[in-house]
């Protein structure tokens, strides 16, 4: 029973990340996802210290502020101080992450997070934090409900915002020329990424969020040229990584999140080999014909 909840939660988180990550990939902003996932740590820790609990709402606010802070810091360093972009990103998120770790070490009593958990989450504990419905008859883990809602929210967002995401990802200058506010779209999109990062932090940890954002979409991108197909394939690989990853972790008695990512990486490798063989054989064909 517990296994089902863990797998379901993992799959929901992975699929949410797959949807957003596909556009992150197309917008060539994969490293911004990395930056945000590190930078939200101090926000989460402070929220924890203030609220004294794992109240998601306060954590969401704390982390969103941290996400906003890192974005502003990067902008300040890059645009106003004219520091190169990669260094602006690198310095900003490592600094914020360091602050987060220091806070955890300094306030270990108040903060119920340990350093390792921060990196790779505690999805194994998901089934033990339950919410009860209908007078105790029905229950679901809190995390599963939240990831379910998050997935629905993200799915709705992608469906409604599909055209806007397409044009601002493909040709932002052209979009601007039509009067579309690419800045607004960027901020809304990054907010969705931040919200997802924060809510999934507890479950899969900082670094592994990045993997879920990038790897299944990258795998899908290698296999198809159509956007709708890419999104569907990304969802499939995400779900498979979650399901298979759980069993791999059980087999090896290892971190579930780590196993999910390793499996996602394995799928990517397969797709990579497949696409290289396919392109070689196309070249041979062309060579033979021409």
């Amino acid at each position: 029973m517990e296994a089902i909840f863990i797998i379901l939660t993992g799959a929901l988180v992975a699929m949410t990340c797959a949807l957003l990550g596909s556009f992150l990939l197309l917008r060539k902003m994969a490293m911004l996802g990395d930056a945000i996932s590190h930078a939200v740590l101090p926000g989460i820790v402070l929220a924890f210290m203030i609220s004294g609990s794992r109240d998601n709402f306060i954590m969401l606010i704390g982390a969103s502020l941290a996400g906003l802070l890192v974005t502003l810091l990067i902008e300040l360093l890059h645009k106003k101080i004219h520091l190169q972009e990669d260094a602006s990103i690198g310095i900003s998120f490592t600094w914020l992450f360091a602050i987060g770790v220091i806070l955890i070490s300094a306030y270990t009593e108040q903060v119920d997070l340990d350093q390792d958990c921060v990196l790779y989450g505690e999805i194994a504990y998901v089934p033990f934090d339950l919410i009860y419905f209908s007078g105790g008859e029905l229950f679901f883990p809190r995390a599963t409900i939240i990831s379910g809602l998050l997935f629905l929210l993200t799915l709705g967002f992608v469906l409604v915002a599909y055209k806007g995401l397409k044009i601002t990802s493909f040709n932002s200058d052209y979009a601007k020329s039509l009067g579309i506010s690419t800045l607004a779209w960027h901020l809304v999109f990054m907010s969705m990424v931040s919200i997802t990062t924060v809510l999934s932090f507890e479950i899969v940890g900082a670094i592994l969020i990045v993997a879920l954002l990038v790897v299944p979409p990258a795998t899908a991108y290698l296999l198809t040229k159509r956007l709708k197909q890419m999104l569907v394939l990304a969802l499939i690989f995400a779900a498979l990584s979650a399901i298979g990853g759980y069993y791999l972790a059980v087999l090896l008695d290892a971190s579930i999140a780590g196993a999910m990512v390793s499996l996602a990486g394995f799928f990517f490798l397969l797709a990579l080999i497949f696409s290289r063989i396919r392109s070689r054989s196309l070249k041979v064909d062309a060579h033979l014909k021409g």
Partner: protein
Amino acid sequence: MNDVWAFFSFSDPTVRIVSLGTVFLAMSASVVGTFAFLRKRALVGDAIAHAILPGIAIAFMLSGTKNPIVLMMGALISGWLATWAMEYITEKTKLSNDTAVALVLSVFFGIGIMLLTHIQHSGSGNQSGLDQYLFGKAAGMTEQDLWTYSVVALLLLIVVISLYKELKVYSFNPDFAAVSGLPVKAIRRILNLVTVLAIAIGIQSVGVVLMAALLITPAAAARAWTSSLKIMLFLAALIGGISGLSGSLISYLSPAMPTGPWIVMTLSIITLLSLFFAPQRGALSRLLKQRRHSQKILNENLLKVFYKLSVERKLEEAGLNVGELQAERAINKSDFAAAIKRLKRKNWLLAEGEKLKLSSIGLVEAKRVVRLHRLWEMYLSQRLNLKEDHIHPNAESMEHIISPELEALLLKELDFPTQDPHNSPIPYSN
């Protein structure tokens, strides 16, 4: 306070080892990281740092020991593989570079975490302390470790010094490097190798997650102070070393505190201060420069008003009062008063009771500004083919910018004209 003295007396051998080791690690990472910074590959360094984790785990699993040399070999292989993978994915697929970096970073790290937790849970004993690689725990450094790191750090230094010229060209001007026959591929491979090595040992102090900071942040700080590569490398090493020392100090004073984040904290603060306060390139100096410019502009605009009223319109030989001046040009009262004060201080203006008058050197200066304005208008009209009614705004700005050297060029270009396109005379001072 006693503790701080105790630390710096270096009488405790552990303190000696830990602080020396951390400083060496930090310095070699900072030097190597400077090249990564110049090639704009900060995030690649981050990826490599995360990617060495599985190498360490596998090395441990295969050898059953925590011998640092063995683990470092594992780290090297893993790091090297990651570098190759990022390049391969970028070159051979339609995936972009940033995706390749994020992918390699997270997948390798995920595999590393999976193996690490597997080791921890398998209870084979002897496995504790492997997770120090995540955040760094310099306190566990032994004398043997110190020797290993010193040798490696020295090696890195030797490589950088002997290949200095080639690395310099490659970092600042890779296209030129390729064209001028430098073995670009070999240089890139050596630089990659050296970077992976520096990272493999550097994570002892700051851990995997924050390693990128140790590579890039000192370089960013150094860059704010200079554009000379030699000085940059020296400064980066210095800043890295200081941060390493301060991280060790804080860890010593408060054992619950991890070394890594405090090293990064020190680095970040030094860097942010540098970016803000460094002369010339710093943000503060830029703000001050802008203020100087606004003052110069106000001063010179005021001089022009004096010139127009007293010389051209021949008003009041005895001087002008503030009201007449204010009527001529719209400047707000406080700026106006401040400018008058500055002009008086430079002795370009003389006060005669209520009235103000240009001094003789003030007149020379006023003529210069008016001359530049009208010369520039000639230039705009003749060389840029702008019509008479379109040249004034740009000339208003340029009159403050043209240096004496450029004025000489301008005069030669236009062949010492006597009138501007509006037929106003161009004043010369002799």
